[in-house]
């Protein structure tokens, strides 16, 4: 879940958010050192204009990254679920009586996932008329599958092949700086999955 595209997207948010003082300083420096008619100054103005347009269109850019990240995540989830398909996961409380258990331990894993800015913004308007939110449905699905996979991976790491009595817990996570001022929608969703892992022979 730590793909290259995620790092690029994260770096782009950093540049767009904190680029203002750097680009303005460069513009002022170019004007002071080379004069306002020099080719260096013209180049700087073009760079600054490009940055300004990028910053204006940033929600769109974030959204493209967001959709991309989501698609990559779903593909990764499918791959990992196939890898872990030999494990048995259940939310039953009691084990079948004929199973011979050699190892018992507790496993728990969590994940916090968030949607991109535009999806949250659309939802603030969509809320007026109500209805189903595909964006948030997919978000919670991603989080739940990811938490389950992590829990299964942890169980296998310690030699179990069965996870029993699985419980899920879902929480909204609010950030202090929720990036865009729509903190009311919640920043992200946390899913916590826990269960008891057994080694069954």
């Amino acid at each position: 879940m730590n793909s290259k595209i995620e790092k690029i997207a994260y770096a782009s948010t950093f540049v767009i958010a904190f680029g203002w003082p750097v680009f303005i300083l460069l513009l002022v420096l170019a004007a002071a050192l080379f004069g306002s008619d020099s080719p260096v100054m013209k180049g700087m103005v073009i760079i600054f204009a490009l940055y300004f347009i990028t910053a204006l269109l940033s929600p769109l850019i974030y959204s493209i990254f967001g959709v991309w990240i989501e698609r990559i995540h779903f593909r990764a989830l499918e791959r990992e679920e196939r890898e872990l398909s030999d494990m048995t996961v259940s939310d039953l409380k009691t084990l079948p009586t004929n199973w011979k258990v050699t190892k018992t331990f507790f496993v728990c894993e969590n994940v916090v996932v968030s949607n991109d800015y535009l999806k949250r913004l659309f939802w603030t308007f969509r809320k007026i008329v109500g209805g189903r939110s595909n964006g948030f449905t997919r978000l919670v699905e991603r989080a739940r599958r990811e938490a389950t996979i992590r829990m299964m991976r942890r169980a296998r790491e310690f030699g179990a092949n069965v996870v029993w009595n699985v419980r899920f817990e879902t929480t909204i996570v609010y950030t202090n700086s929720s990036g865009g001022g729509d903190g009311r929608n919640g920043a992200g969703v946390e899913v916590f999955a826990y269960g008891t892992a057994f080694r069954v022979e």
Partner: protein
Amino acid sequence: MFIVNTEYVPGKRVSKVLGLVQGSTVRAKHIGRDIAAGLKNLVGGELKGYTELLNESRNEAMRRMVEQAQSMGANAVLNIRFGTSAITAGASELLCYGTAVILEDA
């Protein structure tokens, strides 16, 4: 210390039930992590800072529960459950509770 969220442990027998034990904690990340998560939040994806925060907090809540169980003389905590609530922005309360028991080999 033996911790499970099932009501029994295969191959073991509960010899004594000592009662409910619990642990809870409220935690927040420092502002740098919050800003980083806020930026990450623009494009979506996993917010690692918050995953870690909640993970650490839950471990602490569990540790407190285990300490309480140990002080009661238990060697296992059965049927543990978790509770989470967002108290304010950037902070969550994590609760962990279970039943402290003394286990014996059956």
